[in-house]
C-alpha cells in the first residue's frame, strides 16, 4: 500500500493544478481518488499561511459542490469527491452540501463506493441528524443482502449511528443475524444490539434471553461483544444478574488459564481486554455482597498471580484486579496482595504506572489508610513532581486523608497548585475542596479567613455559588461560642478592610459581594478602633470602579445603607447620595433615593436595619392583614370584593360568550358590601355579583382596589416574603439540630496544632525537609485508627461545627428531590432556596431586600411586620383536639348522626334484630355516619352508611330482605352523575339475598366535578313475582370529600406561594366563638381540616379535596371578625370551602 503513496507523490507535479470540476464521465473518471486527493494535500502543505489555505479549500469546495450536484457525475467520481469532502471537513471547513450525496452513495454505489458512502455518513452525521432517516432504507436493504460484506457494512453503520425512532425497522433483521453462521456477523449484530440498548433500552427488553445465548456463543468474539451489554445492564441493576456470577468466573478462569485461541493473545497475555471487562463486571456483582464475592476470590487470586510479565498490559490487568478486590466484599489475604501490587505501581520508575499507583491509593485510602503511610515518602516526592497531573492526583489523595492536624499543610499545597493552574474545571474542583476542608478543619480564625480569601480570589466567578453562601451563613449563624463568633467576624472585617485599602487591586465580583455583606453587617464591631467614615469611603471608591458589575454595586449599596443606619450623618453618605441621585443607572439612582429618605428618618432606619439581625426571626404578615381596614373601608364604600386576576379573566371570557340578561347596576353595591362582612352569600352569589359589577359603573373603583392589592402583593407576596421565611426556618433548623451537634462536640478533644504550621522548605537539606513535610502531612494517620480517616468520628476539633449541620445535610439530601418533584408552580419555594443555597441570586435578593425598599409606603408596612413573635411561643395546636378523637361532632349538619368509631354499634331502631345494618370492624374504625334508610318496601330495605376513610368516601349500602323467601338477582344501579365517579362501576349485583338476611355492598366515590352538594340517584331492581324497582337518592356534599392535610408550617409556606387561586372573606364571629383557637377548633372538627399552626391571632389550616387537591387557609381574627384567606391550585375549591366555613361559623 505504501507504494501507492510513492506513486502518488511522484505523479504529483503533473496533477497539481488539475482542479477543473467534474472531469466528466467516462475516461477522466479514472483519475484515481488518491491522486486527486494527493494533489489537494500537496498543495495545502505547500501553502504558508492559513489565509491561503482557506482560499484554496473554499475553491476546492466550490468545485466539489458543482461536481456532486451535476447529474452526470458518476458514482465513482462521487466516491472520490466524498473522500475529498471528508478531508475538507477534517480541516475544519463546512461541507454540509455533500451529506445528502454521501447517503446517496451508500445507497446506490457498488461495494467500494458504498463503503466510502457509509464511512462518509458515519463521519459527517451524528445520531440525531435528520438526514439519517434517509439511510434507513439502505440499511434495511443491505441487511437482507446475501453479500457478507454488505451486511457487515450495514451492521457497522448501525452500531455507530442510527436514529432511535427507526430501531423497530431493523430490529427483527438484526435479531435474525444472531443466528448467522458467520461469527463476524453474529458479533456485529450483538454490537448493534448493544448500541440499541444504550440509546433505547426498552426496545430490546424482549431479547434479553438472546443476550444470554450470545454470552454462551462458541466464538470468543461474540461472547466478548455480549459482555458490553452485560456490563451496562449490571451497572444499572447488579442484583438482577447475580446468577451469572459463576459463568463470568468460569469464563475468566478459562481466559486466565490460556484456554482461548492464540489469536486473542496480546503480547502473549491472553485476551487482556476480555479479562478487564470481566474483572469490572465481577467488581459490580460482588460489591456489598459477601456471598457473591466468595465465588470470585479464587479467580482474582489467580489473576493477580498470572499477571507477572513486566509489560503495560499486565499492569492494566493488575490495576483492574486491585480495584475489583477493593470493591467487593473484602478478604484479608487478597487485600494484602492487592496492597503489595499498589506498592509496585507507586514505586515504579515509569511515570504512567506511578500515576496509576496514586490513583489506586486514592481509591483505597479510606479502607486502608496505612498504605498511605507506607508510601508517604513517594507521595511527598510526587507533590513536587514536574508533571502537573501527578501533582493533581497526589492532592486528590491528600484531600482524602486530611484531618485537623495536617489541614494547613495540605490546603497550602492545594493553593500552590491552584495558583499555577489556569484550567477552569480544575479551579472549580479544587476550590470547593479547599473550602470544604477549611470549613471542616480550620485550626484558627485567622487561618480560616485567609484561606477563604484565597479561595474567593482564585475561585472568583467560576466557583460554585455554594461556597460564598455557606461562608456567609457560617459567619452569620455562628457556632456555639458567642465570643468566638465575634472574633471571627471581627477578623473578617479587618482583613477585608486591609484588602480594600490597596488601590489598584481587582477582586472577583463574588469576593466583593462577600466583603460588602460582611462589612455591612459587622463593621460595627471595630467601631471603637476604626472610623465608619473610612469604611464607607472605601466602599464608595469601589462603586466608582469600572470593573464592578451592577449586581455587586447593589451589594455595596446595601452595605453602605446598613453602615449608615448605625451612624449619625456622614459626609460620604451625603456625597454619595448627591452623586448617584443623578446617575444614569436607574438602580443606583433608586438606591440613592432610598438612602436619602432613610437618612432623613433615623429612627425608621434603625428599626428597619437592626444591628446583627441577619439571623433573627421576622414574622411576616403574609395575609396583609394591616390592609384589612383599608379593604373594609373600600367594601363599605361599595367596592366589589377582590377577585384574583385569573378569576376576573374567566368571568370576562364567559361574559363575552353569552348575552347578558341581567339588568345593570341596581343596588348591588350595598348588597356586595354587606356580603363582604356577613358572608352569608354563597360563592355562586359572590361571583355573580362581581360579574355584574364588572359591567357596572363601579368598574373603575373595583379596578382601583384590585390594583392596589396587586401592587402590594408584588412586593410582599413573593420576594418580600422570602427573607422572612428563610430566617424563620433557619432558626428552627438550628433549634432542632443543636442537641446532636453538641453531643458530638462534647467528645472532642482539642489538639495543639502548632507543629502543623512549621512548613518551611529550604533546598539545602532537602531530604530532611521531606521528612518533616511527611510528618506534618501524615500526622494523625499513624496513631489513629482507620476510623479517624473516614472523617466521620474525627478526634480533632472541628472548629466551625455549624449548629445546623445535621439538618443541613438532611436538607441537602432532600434538596434534589424537592427540585425534581416540584412542578413549575413549586419553584419559588423559600426553603428550597434558602436551605440549599443553590442559587446565589435568590439569597442575594434576600439580603438586598432587607435594605433596599422601593417606597416609603412599603417601609411602614415592613415595620408593622416586625412584631417580635416566635412561632414556638404560641404553638397552640397541641391543645386542640384532633378531629379523629371526636368524630362524633363531624357532620353535625348532615342530618346523619355519627358514631364514635371505638364504640360498639348502638342499637338502631329496627324491628328485626337480624336486619340491623352494621359495619365490619375494619370499616367501623373509620369515622362514619349512622345507617340511614334510603328506601324500603315490603320486601326490601336499603340502608346507607357513609364511611370517611383517609383516601375516599365509602358508601356502604345494606340491602335487607324482609320477606320470607330468598331474592335472586338483585341489582343495584347508580345513575351516571357528572359530579361523582364511582370507582367500582355504577352497578352491583347480588346473586342472592336469603330470606330475613342482610347483604351489603361498598362503593367508593370520588368527586369529579367540584360542587357544594349534589344528589346521587340510584335504584334497586329485583324480580320476585314481577320486575320491581326501588329508587333512592344519596346526598353528597363537598365536606364528604374533604380530608385534613397534615403538613408542617414550612410546607405550608411553600405551598401557599405556589397556589394561584385565592379567595378572601371576613366572617363575623359570634361572641361564643371568642378566640381564634376555638374558632379553628370548630372548623377542624366540622370540616375535617388540619390546623397547622397558630401564632397569636393568626392560624394556618390545611385540608385536601380527595384525591389530592390541597386547599390552604389563613385565618386571622380582627375586631370580632375572622378573616379567612383560602388558596388552592383548583380554582373552584376556595370558593366552595369558604362557603362551608361560613356555614359552620354561622351555625355555632
Amino acid at each position, binding site marked *: *500500500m505504501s507504494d501507492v503513496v510513492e506513486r502518488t507523490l511522484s505523479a504529483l507535479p503533473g496533477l497539481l493544478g488539475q482542479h477543473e470540476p467534474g472531469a466528466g464521465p467516462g475516461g477522466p473518471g479514472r483519475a484515481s481518488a488518491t491522486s486527486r486527493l494527493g494533489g489537494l494535500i500537496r498543495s495545502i502543505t505547500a501553502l504558508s499561511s492559513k489565509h491561503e489555505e482557506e482560499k484554496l479549500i473554499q475553491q476546492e469546495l466550490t468545485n466539489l459542490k458543482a461536481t456532486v450536484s451535476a447529474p452526470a457525475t458518476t458514482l465513482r467520481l462521487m466516491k472520490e469527491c466524498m473522500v475529498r469532502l471528508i478531508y475538507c471537513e477534517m480541516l475544519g471547513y463546512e461541507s454540509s452540501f455533500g451529506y445528502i450525496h454521501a447517503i446517496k452513495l451508500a445507497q446506490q454505489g*457498488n461495494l467500494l463506493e458504498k463503503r466510502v458512502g457509509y464511512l462518509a455518513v458515519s463521519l459527517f452525521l451524528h445520531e440525531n441528524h435528520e438526514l439519517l432517516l434517509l439511510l434507513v432504507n439502505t440499511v434495511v436493504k443491505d441487511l437482507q443482502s446475501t453479500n457478507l460484506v454488505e451486511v457487515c457494512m450495514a451492521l*457497522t453503520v448501525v452500531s455507530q449511528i442510527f436514529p432511535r425512532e427507526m430501531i423497530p425497522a431493523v430490529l427483527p433483521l438484526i435479531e435474525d443475524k444472531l443466528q448467522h453462521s458467520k461469527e463476524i456477523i453474529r458479533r456485529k449484530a450483538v454490537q448493534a444490539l448493544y448500541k440499541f440498548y444504550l440509546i433505547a433500552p426498552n426496545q430490546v427488553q424482549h431479547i434479553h434471553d438472546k443476550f444470554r445465548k450470545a454470552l454462551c456463543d462458541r466464538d470468543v*468474539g461474540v461472547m466478548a461483544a455480549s459482555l458490553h451489554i452485560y456490563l451496562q445492564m449490571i451497572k444499572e441493576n447488579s442484583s438482577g444478574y447475580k446468577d451469572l456470577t459463576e459463568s463470568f468466573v468460569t469464563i475468566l478462569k478459562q481466559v486466565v488459564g490460556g484456554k482461548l485461541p492464540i489469536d486473542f493473545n496480546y503480547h502473549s497475555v491472553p485476551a487482556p481486554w476480555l479479562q478487564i471487562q470481566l474483572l469490572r463486571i465481577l467488581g459490580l456483582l460482588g460489591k456489598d455482597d459477601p456471598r457473591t464475592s466468595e465465588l470470585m476470590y479464587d479467580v482474582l487470586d489467580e489473576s493477580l498471580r498470572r499477571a507477572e510479565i513486566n509489560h503495560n498490559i499486565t499492569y492494566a490487568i493488575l490495576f483492574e484486579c486491585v480495584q475489583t478486590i477493593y470493591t467487593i466484599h473484602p478478604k484479608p489475604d487478597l487485600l494484602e496482595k492487592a496492597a503489595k501490587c499498589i506498592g509496585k505501581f507507586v514505586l515504579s520508575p515509569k511515570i504512567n504506572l506511578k*500515576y496509576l499507583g496514586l490513583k489506586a491509593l486514592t481509591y483505597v485510602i479510606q479502607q486502608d489508610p496505612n498504605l498511605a503511610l507506607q508510601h508517604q515518602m513517594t507521595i511527598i516526592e510526587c507533590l513536587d513532581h514536574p*508533571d502537573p497531573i501527578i501533582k493533581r492526583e497526589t492532592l486528590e489523595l491528600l484531600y482524602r486523608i486530611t484531618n485537623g492536624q495536617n489541614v494547613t499543610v495540605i490546603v497550602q499545597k492545594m493553593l500552590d497548585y491552584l495558583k499555577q493552574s489556569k484550567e477552569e474545571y480544575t479551579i472549580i474542583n479544587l476550590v470547593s475542596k479547599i473550602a470544604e476542608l477549611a470549613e471542616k478543619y480550620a485550626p484558627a480564625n485567622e487561618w480560616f479567613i485567609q484561606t477563604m480569601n484565597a479561595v474567593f480570589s482564585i475561585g472568583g466567578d467560576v466557583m460554585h455559588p455554594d461556597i460564598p453562601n455557606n461562608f456567609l451563613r457560617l459567619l452569620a449563624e455562628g457556632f456555639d461560642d458567642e465570643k468566638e463568633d465575634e472574633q471571627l467576624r471581627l477578623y473578617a472585617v479587618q482583613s477585608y478592610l486591609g484588602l480594600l485599602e490597596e488601590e489598584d487591586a481587582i477582586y472577583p465580583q463574588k469576593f466583593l459581594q462577600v466583603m460588602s455583606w460582611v462589612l455591612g453587617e459587622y463593621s460595627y464591631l471595630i467601631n471603637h478602633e476604626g472610623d465608619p467614615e473610612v469604611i464607607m469611603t472605601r466602599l464608595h471608591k469601589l462603586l466608582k470602579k469600572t470593573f464592578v458589575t451592577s449586581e455587586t454595586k447593589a451589594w455595596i449599596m446595601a452595605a453602605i445603607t446598613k453602615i449608615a443606619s448605625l451612624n449619625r450623618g456622614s459626609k460620604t453618605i451625603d456625597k454619595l447620595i448627591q452623586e448617584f441621585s443623578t446617575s444614569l443607572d436607574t438602580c443606583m439612582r433608586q438606591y440613592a433615593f432610598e438612602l436619602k429618605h432613610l437618612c432623613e428618618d433615623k429612627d425608621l432606619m434603625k428599626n428597619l436595619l437592626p444591628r446583627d439581625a441577619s439571623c433573627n426571626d421576622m414574622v411576616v404578615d403574609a395575609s396583609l392583614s394591616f390592609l384589612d381596614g383599608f379593604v373594609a373601608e373600600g367594601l363599605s364604600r361599595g367596592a366589589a370584593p377582590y377577585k384574583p386576576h385569573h378569576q376576573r379573566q374567566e368571568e370576562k371570557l364567559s361574559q363575552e360568550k353569552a348575552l347578558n340578561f341581567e339588568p345593570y347596576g341596581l343596588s348591588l353595591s350595598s348588597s356586595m358590601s354587606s356580603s363582604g362582612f356577613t358572608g352569608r352569600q354563597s360563592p355562586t352569589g359572590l361571583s355573580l355579583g362581581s360579574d355584574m359589577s364588572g359591567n357596572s359603573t363601579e368598574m373603575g373603583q373595583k379596578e382601583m382596589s384590585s390594583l392596589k392589592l396587586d401592587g402590594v402583593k408584588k412586593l410582599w407576596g413573593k420576594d418580600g416574603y422570602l427573607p422572612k421565611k428563610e430566617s424563620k426556618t433557619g432558626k428552627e433548623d438550628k433549634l432542632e439540630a443543636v442537641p446532636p451537634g453538641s453531643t458530638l462536640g462534647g467528645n472532642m478533644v482539642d489538639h495543639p496544632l502548632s507543629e502543623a504550621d512549621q512548613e518551611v522548605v529550604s533546598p539545602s537539606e532537602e531530604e530532611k525537609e521531606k521528612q518533616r513535610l511527611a510528618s506534618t502531612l501524615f500526622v494523625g494517620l499513624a496513631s489513629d485508627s482507620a476510623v479517624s480517616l473516614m472523617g466521620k468520628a474525627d478526634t480533632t476539633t472541628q472548629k466551625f461545627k455549624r449548629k445546623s449541620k445535621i439538618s443541613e445535610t438532611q436538607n441537602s439530601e432532600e434538596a434534589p428531590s424537592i427540585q425534581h418533584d416540584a412542578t413549575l408552580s413549586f419553584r419559588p419555594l423559600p426553603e428550597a432556596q434558602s436551605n440549599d443555597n443553590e442559587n446565589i441570586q435568590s439569597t442575594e435578593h434576600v439580603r438586598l431586600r432587607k435594605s433596599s425598599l422601593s417606597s416609603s409606603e412599603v417601609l411602614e408596612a415592613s415595620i408593622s411586620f416586625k412584631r417580635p413573635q416566635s412561632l414556638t411561643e404560641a404553638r397552640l395546636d397541641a391543645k386542640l383536639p384532633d378531629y379523629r378523637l371526636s368524630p362524633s361532632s363531624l357532620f353535625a349538619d348532615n342530618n346523619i348522626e355519627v358514631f364514635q368509631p371505638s364504640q360498639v354499634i348502638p342499637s338502631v331502631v329496627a324491628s328485626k334484630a337480624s336486619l340491623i345494618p352494621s359495619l365490619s370492624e375494619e370499616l367501623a374504625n373509620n369515622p362514619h355516619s349512622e345507617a340511614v334508610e334510603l328506601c324500603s318496601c315490603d320486601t326490601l330495605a336499603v340502608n346507607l352508611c357513609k364511611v370517611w376513610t383517609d383516601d375516599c368516601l365509602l358508601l356502604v349500602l345494606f340491602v335487607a330482605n324482609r320477606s320470607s323467601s330468598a331474592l335472586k338477582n338483585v341489582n343495584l344501579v347508580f345513575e351516571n352523575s357528572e359530579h361523582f365517579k364511582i370507582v367500582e362501576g355504577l352497578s352491583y349485583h347480588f346473586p342472592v339475598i336469603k330470606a330475613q338476611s342482610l347483604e351489603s355492598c361498598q362503593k367508593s366515590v370520588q368527586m369529579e366535578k367540584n360542587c357544594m352538594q349534589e344528589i346521587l340517584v340510584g335504584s334497586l331492581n329485583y324480580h320476585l313475582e314481577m320486575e320491581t324497582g326501588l329508587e333512592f337518592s344519596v346526598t353528597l356534599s363537598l365536606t364528604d370529600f374533604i380530608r385534613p392535610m397534615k403538613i408542617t408550617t414550612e410546607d405550608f409556606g411553600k405551598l401557599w406561594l405556589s397556589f394561584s387561586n385565592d379567595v378572601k372573606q371576613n366572617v363575623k364571629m359570634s361572641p361564643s366563638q371568642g378566640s381564634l383557637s376555638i374558632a379553628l377548633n370548630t372548623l377542624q372538627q366540622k370540616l375535617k381540616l388540619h390546623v397547622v399552626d397558630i401564632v397569636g391571632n393568626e392560624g394556618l389550616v390545611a385540608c385536601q379535596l380527595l384525591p389530592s387537591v390541597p386547599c390552604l387557609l389563613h385565618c386571622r381574627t380582627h375586631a370580632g371578625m375572622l378573616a379567612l384567606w383560602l388558596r388552592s391550585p383548583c380554582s373552584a375549591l376556595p370558593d366552595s370551602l369558604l362557603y362551608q366555613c361560613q356555614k359552620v361559623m354561622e351555625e355555632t
Partner: protein
Amino acid sequence: MSVHMQFMLLFSRQGKLRLQKWYVPLSDKEKKKITRELVQTVLARKPKMCSFLEWRDLKIVYKRYASLYFCCAIEDQDNELITLEIIHRYVELLDKYFGSVCELDIIFNFEKAYFILDEFLLGGEVQETSKKNVLKAIEQADLLQEPRHEYFNVPVY
C-alpha cells in the same frame, strides 16, 4: 472493552489533524474547540511526562508514534493503561496493513485508516481484539472489490 471512548484524534507534531473519530454526538463547533484545545495541551507536554491528562471531566490518554500523536478521551473511571494498549493495537494494525506505516500513509489513505479503526473499535468500544480477525475483515472487503474494478471498469450511473 472496559473503556468507553468518547473520541479519538490523530494529529501531527505541527498540530495538523489527521484523523478524527467522535463516539459522542457533539456539534461541529464543540468538536473544533475541543480539538484546538487538546492539540495545544498535548503538544505542550514534555516527552518524559505522563501519558494521561485530566481535561474537563475526561481523561485524555495520548501517545506519540514518530511524528504522529494518537489521542483518546475516556471517562474518569476507565482504565488508562488499557487505553494506551488500544492505541498501540491500532498502530500495530495500521502497520501490518500498510507495511511499516508512516504518517504519509495515513494522510493519503485516511479512509483506509478509518476502515481499520471501525473494524477495531465500534461505537467507542473494542470490537475485535484479534489482530488477525480485524485484518481478515478488512482484506475481505478490499478483495471483494478490487477484481470487480478491474473487470468492470465502467462508470456506474
